[in-house]
């Protein structure tokens, strides 16, 4: 995005900037984030303060975790569109089961659909080789249907948000959102897994050149199944966090996060074709999108325009990314 600003400059510098961007994708992203915050401050002087910062971080965290699911699946050349449904399911089940069950039991029950959907996704993609997009779309449809059936069985018992999730989702400690307690270890774990462990390397290997990975003895279906189960589990945890933030269990709770989560991963420099990218960029991508959403709300942009913009961002960034990679 910031490359358009450098266009008028001499070619050699432009190419150098491009090279620099390809090598260090984080720098232009952070610059973009700062620019957005400055624009926000100019439009509404005084809006950028401690409370706003905490709020932004609070809303960016669920998005960042879901975008983590997209990052990991996209590294293998896939995508996980069922994260919204999985997060909604676990949140809804948690909120309704906590009424009658022990918190630990309710938690386990809430995680069941996540594991199940992840497993089906993984088998469908890894063993049957269905395109991940179609597969996860299908399981999310099935999941929504199951949730509707489930809703009718618990309609009488009501729902409540556990205090702990409330604290985790909305609470502040010394001005820092409590959700960071969950997010920071999680983010460190994801970054560490992707960079330093064998599983992380396998994800890159499978996404970069699946055939080569297979020929060198990687069991493709095992990697993919594990990946989609992890992705679903993360989505389930996000659901619990998100219900503490939104405080209103509904059947379409996390659905609006799906599209931004894909956009966040793409903005963060993860290639939708697999093999390239990382989680740190995604986190900044999620922050950028959250600030952008605030900006669009202040400008009173309707929901439709927001979706159009997100779609265009995905297309534009992917096309630009393709150009950068081709030139090297």
């Amino acid at each position, binding site marked *: 995005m910031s490359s358009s600003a450098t266009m008028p400059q001499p070619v050699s510098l432009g190419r150098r900037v491009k090279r620099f961007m390809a090598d260090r994708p984080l720098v232009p992203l952070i610059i973009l984030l700062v620019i957005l915050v400055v624009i926000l401050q100019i439009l509404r002087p005084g809006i950028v303060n401690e409370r706003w910062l905490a709020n932004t971080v609070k809303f960016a965290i669920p998005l960042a975790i879901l975008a983590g699911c997209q990052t990991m699946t996209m590294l293998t050349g896939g995508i996980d569109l069922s994260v919204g449904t999985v997060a909604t399911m676990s949140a809804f089940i948690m909120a309704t089961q906590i009424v009658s069950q022990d918190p630990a039991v309710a938690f386990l029950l809430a995680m069941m659909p996540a594991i199940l959907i992840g497993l*089906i996704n993984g088998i*469908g993609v890894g063993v*049957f*080789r*269905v*395109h991940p*997009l*179609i*597969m996860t*779309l*299908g*399981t999310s*449809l*099935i999941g*929504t*249907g*199951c949730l*509707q*059936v489930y809703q*009718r069985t618990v309609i009488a018992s009501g729902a409540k948000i556990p205090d702990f999730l409330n604290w985790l989702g909305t609470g502040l400690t010394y001005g820092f959102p409590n959700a960071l307690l969950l997010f920071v270890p999680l983010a460190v774990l994801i970054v560490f897994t992707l960079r330093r462990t064998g599983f992380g390397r396998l994800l890159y290997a499978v996404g970069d050149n699946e*055939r080569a990975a297979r020929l060198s003895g990687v069991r493709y279906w095992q990697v993919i199944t594990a990946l989609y189960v992890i992705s679903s589990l993360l989505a389930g945890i996000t659901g619990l966090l998100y219900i503490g933030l939104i405080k209103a269990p509904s059947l379409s709770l996390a659905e609006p996060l799906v*599209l931004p989560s*894909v956009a966040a991963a793409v903005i963060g420099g993860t290639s*939708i*074709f697999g093999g390239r990218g990382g989680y740190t960029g995604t986190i900044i991508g999620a922050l950028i999108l959250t600030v952008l959403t605030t900006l669009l709300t202040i400008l009173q942009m*309707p*929901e*439709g*325009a*927001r*979706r*159009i*913009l*997100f*779609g*265009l961002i*995905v*297309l534009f960034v*992917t*096309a630009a990314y*393709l150009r950068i990679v081709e030139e090297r």
Partner: protein
Amino acid sequence: MTRFFRNQGWVAGLFALFVLLFVLTKLIQPGYGSGDFGSLVRAVLPYAFAVAAQTVVVIAGGIDLSVAAMMALTSVTAASMMNGASEEYALFVVPFVLAMGLVLGALNGILIVVTRVPDIVVTLATLFVLQGAALLVLGAPGGAAADWLKASIVGTLPIPGLPDSIDAWVPKALVLLVVCLCIIWIPLRRSKLGLSIYAIGSSELAAFRSGVPVARTRIIAYALSGLFAAMGGLTLTMSTGIGAPIPGPYLLASVAAVVLGGVALGGGKGGLLGPIVAVFVLRLVRTDLTLLAIDPNVTAIIEGAIMVAVVMFGAFITIRGRPAGAMP
């Protein structure tokens, strides 16, 4: 030659399945008659056009994820234009909406050709964009449809020289579907353009080397897909009398019917008849489940599971059927 038999055999088998399901329906509900068949065809209409839209693109070796969103956009456009307008005005609305579908579909194709981003990513982005545009046109379900449009799919078409008992089995909706599809498909199939579409789906490189204008053909295939989707959107408005900005479950249904209809997801194989019969089969299954007094939400789950299973089966066949060494 054997392939010809195998393809026709597949369609014949599907048709036999349809007849079998029909007999089953008659057994479950002895009163199931021509009137119910009419409403089945009306329910099939939007699905059939969605499937037609998907089929053209899949034969050309691509996939169009924006089918359902395109239908939503064209439907709300038609509904909001006809709202409070005169009956004659609809005569202008119909061609306008069809042209809109054609142009937007062509835009999909142009974006794929120009940006060289894979079709699945481009149409995912346009899915978001079209969805947003639909929300901008109409924030909530509403609008209206001209009475003659609504009447054009209700009831039966009297054919002179046929007894009423047979006539009752020729609903107007079926005539509309057959006419619309044949007007476009038969000339296309017999033209050089149709052959080119099959050629680029079968092997892009071979098609290019034999002088097929690959880029132009691909754009035309997507434009036709947009046209079919616009027809689907119009039938949605015609059958409900309003337009809804939220896309229905047509994307997954279209992919499932394409696979069930014997069109290989890799492209270059199959026809339009198979997927259309397949969509009738899928709808009739739903009717049967409803007649068996199964909870509609459970029906949705079963339907989703069937579609996922079909897609998985199709993908499995594709990997099994691919000759060794023919990896793309």
